[in-house]
């Protein structure tokens, strides 16, 4: 026992004082770990596993995805920040965790600057749909209907910006609806089909087949990006709403301190993967995700701007700070 212990202790110490073997030029020389702040099966989880397969093919090193869900996405960010900045751990994070959570939590369990943005990856196309039974086609008609039949409409959404919009429409145009808590895209669809909820604003991937089957009517694109599947649906801005749109992006991050060479290598390679037409068709377009590769600087700036807007959204939507 004592021998074993001494041996492992020695091995432990010996190894920890060795210089880091990898140089930025021949990166990577060992397997890569990607932290995702969603559970297995989540949007970003499915996506990043596909990217991981591609990276494995191109770089010759296996990629393991480690799911760190929970704590309102905060745990994943904290796990990212706490990992070793040697480039062998990168993270795919939902931007809301960095954009909205600083406004929503009094005690944030991570430091906003503890992770460095590498590149945006994709936006989730958020679509506002109403039950086809309502027979409305535009946002204005919907507002009018809610006034004509008060107390009959409720909506559900996970998108803070959409809550702010709906609240503003209530205040400014006298719309009448009630927000019910969001419990997942599947539930949102079910409750529209069964008539318990009339309006929902969720990722378009949930809705495509039901819109095509004529059960739901798309009213507006909440990201202010037109949809490829339903090109006739106007954006929020085109519907006359000037508030901040939903961003809902997923980006690639690294713990602070990763060398610039390695970051550039990731951004270039992941960019190539996402811009590959076959990959994009399967993993992004089919799932109503909009590719959005950028640069570390541009993405950092975008997040900064979104964070400023988020303060306004949180106030307008009347969200409670924890």
């Amino acid at each position, binding site marked *: *026992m004592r021998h*074993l212990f001494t041996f*492992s202790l020695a091995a*432990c110490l010996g*190894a920890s004082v060795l210089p880091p073997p990898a140089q930025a030029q021949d990166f990577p020389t060992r397997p890569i*770990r990607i932290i995702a702040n969603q559970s297995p099966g989540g949007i970003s989880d499915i996506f990043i596993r596909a990217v991981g397969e591609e990276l494995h093919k191109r770089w010759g090193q*296996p990629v*393991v995805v*480690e799911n760190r869900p929970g704590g309102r996405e905060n745990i994943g960010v904290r796990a990212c920040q706490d990992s070793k900045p040697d480039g062998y751990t990168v993270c795919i994070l939902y931007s809301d965790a960095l954009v909205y959570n600083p406004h929503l939590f009094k005690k944030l369990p991570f430091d906003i600057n503890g992770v460095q943005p590498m590149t945006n990856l994709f936006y989730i196309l958020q679509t506002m749909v109403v039950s086809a039974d309502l027979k409305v086609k535009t946002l204005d008609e919907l507002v009018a209907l809610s006034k004509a039949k008060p107390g009959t409409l409720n909506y559900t959404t996970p998108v803070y910006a959409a809550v702010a919009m709906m609240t503003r429409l209530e205040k400014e145009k006298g719309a009448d609806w009630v927000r019910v808590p969001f419990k997942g895209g599947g539930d949102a669809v079910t409750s529209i089909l069964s008539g318990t909820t009339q309006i929902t604003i969720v990722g378009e991937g949930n809705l495509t087949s039901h819109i095509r089957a004529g059960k739901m009517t798309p009213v507006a694109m909440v990201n202010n990006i037109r949809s490829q599947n339903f090109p006739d649906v106007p954006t929020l801005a085109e519907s006359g709403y000037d508030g901040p749109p939903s961003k809902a992006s997923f980006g690639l991050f690294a713990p602070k301190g990763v060398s610039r060479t390695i970051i550039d290598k990731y951004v270039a390679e992941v960019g190539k993967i996402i811009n590959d037409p076959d990959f994009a068709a399967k993993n992004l377009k089919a799932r109503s995700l909009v590719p959005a590769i950028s640069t570390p600087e541009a993405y950092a700036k975008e997040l900064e701007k979104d964070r400023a807007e988020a303060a306004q959204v949180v106030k307008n939507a009347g969200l409670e700070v924890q």
Partner: protein
Amino acid sequence: MTASPDGEHVGRRMILRRDHIAGGAFAVASALVLIMSGDLPFGTLASPGAGMMPKLLLVLLIGFGAILIVRAGGSPPLAEIEWNDIRHAATVIGLSAVATAVYTIIGFVLSMSLLMFVLLYFVERRMLWRAAVVSVGVTVGSYLLFNTLLKSPLPPMPFWF
């Protein structure tokens, strides 16, 4: 649950019984949690606050605990509960706690093989080489299985991967 025969006989006098302790523990614990939840808003019936259900539930639990105490007469005396396994339980939970504390620091393989080795060699007094082979073999095997084949990572050692 079933009162032992002599338990019934001794039971006439005021003896500390199993359910006195159990009911008391639940009631006290619930009361403590109730005090802790003072800042949760109770709300009104029409619009319940976050604290309504937990508080109602806690009051119910205190009530249940009280009922248990009142009806404790049928339960066996506290002294009849055998605690001969407590050493084992304390050893196992203590060692597991130590292993958990260092789990993410020194990694899965080291922490778990040490835990198994200590349990096998020191607690169960198995042969040294067997204990060592089993503990190291099983943990390294599981590590490889989960990390490479199943791609669901276990905490690595600090100096390896």
